[in-house]
């Protein structure tokens, strides 16, 4: 049976509850070291397995908010002997249109992002280690990252502990400005625990700390400020973000197997960062099977966040504060998505090289509602009819919906 590739690790105690004083920091480090030592201690004791051999070919599409993004993603994964599994992923985003943030100050555009990643999983005395290298390339953005993870089952294989570390580097450019080049780097620490509760229930806990340093802005986005001398009553200027960011996220998941071949799952996640953003995510899903061939999944997801400390829809003057942002991703908003997945499964004979194949269609519809991000484009659509113009700062709040579609074929061997 396929085994989920275990994601990684790191406990970081939430900053809001415990001040990261030197003592606490030392204890966290000791805890991580203890986990690693214990991981080594139980090295040979319990089971771990390599991910299942499979290939996936997917077409993905995102349509909404003025954006159209689609492209392919191809994954190949194959074992080499009994101890090594290698994987490669090729992914493309073809982007056209522009979100409202960009449309307010510029024109729609078209570009392409290509992501390549290669990975190797190594099973040594029943401990699973993984190493991944990813590059992402656009005409104005280059990124690369490396990830290392360790996963171990213990307590009679009822508990799986996984630890992970990632490091990434970004090179940020700007179309039309050859001299523009900024750098950013990122580190992720991850901790995951999966616990079998009963023969029908699994709980999962995942914690991740991410820290960024460098140029964290989007060079194309602007903030707006009141300027009575301007025809619109406001003007735009470049946004300025802090050059460091630290965030903590923790999630808990539960999967329950129903008396017939079906399951329900739930997920709750909390997030906070040093920019003042606080967010909660809740997800519920139900998976139903029809015979041996069909799997149907229905799900709902709700996300809510409070704005960054330095976010404002409208500033009273130019350079009002040292840090300023008007990215809608930094504002107070929520979204609700409803999704459906259909899977049709073919089983091949046991003697065949290919064991199983699936055809899958996943679809999600998402509604975004912003609490303090206003639609400044509303006035530009009136075309000379000034009677409906909203005063500056009183434009209607922005909202939009999006459709996310994935169609893919998977083959297992």
């Amino acid at each position, binding site marked *: *049976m*396929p*085994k*989920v*590739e275990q*994601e990684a690790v790191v406990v970081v105690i939430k900053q809001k509850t*415990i001040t990261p004083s030197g*003592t*606490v920091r030392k204890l966290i480090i000791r805890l991580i070291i*203890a*986990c690693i030592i*214990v991981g080594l*201690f*139980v090295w040979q*004791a*319990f089971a771990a397995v390599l991910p299942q051999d499979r290939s*996936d070919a*997917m077409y*993905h599409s*995102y349509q909404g*908010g003025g954006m159209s993004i689609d492209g392919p*993603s191809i*994954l190949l994964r194959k074992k080499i002997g009994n101890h090594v599994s290698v994987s490669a*992923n090729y*992914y493309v985003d073809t982007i056209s249109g522009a979100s409202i943030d960009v449309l307010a100050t510029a024109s729609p555009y078209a570009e392409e992002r290509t992501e390549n990643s290669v990975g190797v999983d190594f099973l040594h005395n029943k401990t699973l280690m993984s190493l991944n290298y990813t590059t992402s390339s656009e005409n104005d953005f280059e990124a690369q990252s490396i990830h290392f993870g360790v996963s171990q089952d*213990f*307590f*009679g*294989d*009822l508990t*799986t502990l996984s630890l992970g570390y990632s490091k990434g580097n970004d090179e940020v450019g700007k179309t039309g400005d050859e001299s523009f080049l900024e750098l950013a780097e990122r580190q992720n620490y*991850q901790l*995951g625990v*999966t616990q*079998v509760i009963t*023969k*029908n229930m699994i709980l*999962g*806990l*995942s914690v991740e*700390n991410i820290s960024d340093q460098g140029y964290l802005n989007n060079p194309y986005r602007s903030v707006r400020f009141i300027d009575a001398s301007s025809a619109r009553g406001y003007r735009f200027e470049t946004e300025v973000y802090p050059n460091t960011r630290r*965030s*903590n*996220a923790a*999630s808990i*998941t539960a*999967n329950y*197997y129903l008396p017939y071949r*079906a399951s329900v799952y739930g997920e709750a*996640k909390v*997030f906070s960062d040093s920019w003042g953003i606080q967010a909660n995510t809740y997800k519920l899903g139900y*998976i139903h099977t029809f015979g041996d061939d069909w*799997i149907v999944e229905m799900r709902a997801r709700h*996300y809510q*966040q409070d704005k*960054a400390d330095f976010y404002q829809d409208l500033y009273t003057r130019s350079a009002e504060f040292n840090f300023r942002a008007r990215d809608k*991703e930094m504002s107070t908003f929520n979204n609700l998505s409803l999704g459906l997945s259909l899977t049709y499964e073919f089983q091949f004979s046991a003697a065949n090289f290919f064991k199983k194949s699936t055809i899958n269609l*996943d679809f999600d519809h998402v509604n*975004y509602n912003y609490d303090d991000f206003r639609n400044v484009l509303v006035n530009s659509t009136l075309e000379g009819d000034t009677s409906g113009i909203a005063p500056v700062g009183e434009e209607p709040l922005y909202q939009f919906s999006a459709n996310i579609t994935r169609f*893919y074929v998977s083959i297992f061997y």
Partner: protein
Amino acid sequence: MKAIKSTHLRLLLVIMVSGFASGCSSTFEPWVKPYERDNLADPIMSMNRNPVSLAYTHHAYQAREGARGAEGGAGGGCGCN
């Protein structure tokens, strides 16, 4: 206050390490036996049964939200392969 928190954390650390270390004991009897894990091993119990689609979905949400991380993909992991 700091000392109290520090003591509690040390205690927690000792308990966790003791717990992990006890996992090495060959006398540990799992309360869900290996032969009782058919349901847990079913792909419909995995949050990550389609990794390509899941990675894309995380990307699609994360690009438009302030929050990030702890995507986990926990689920499965019952060692029943």
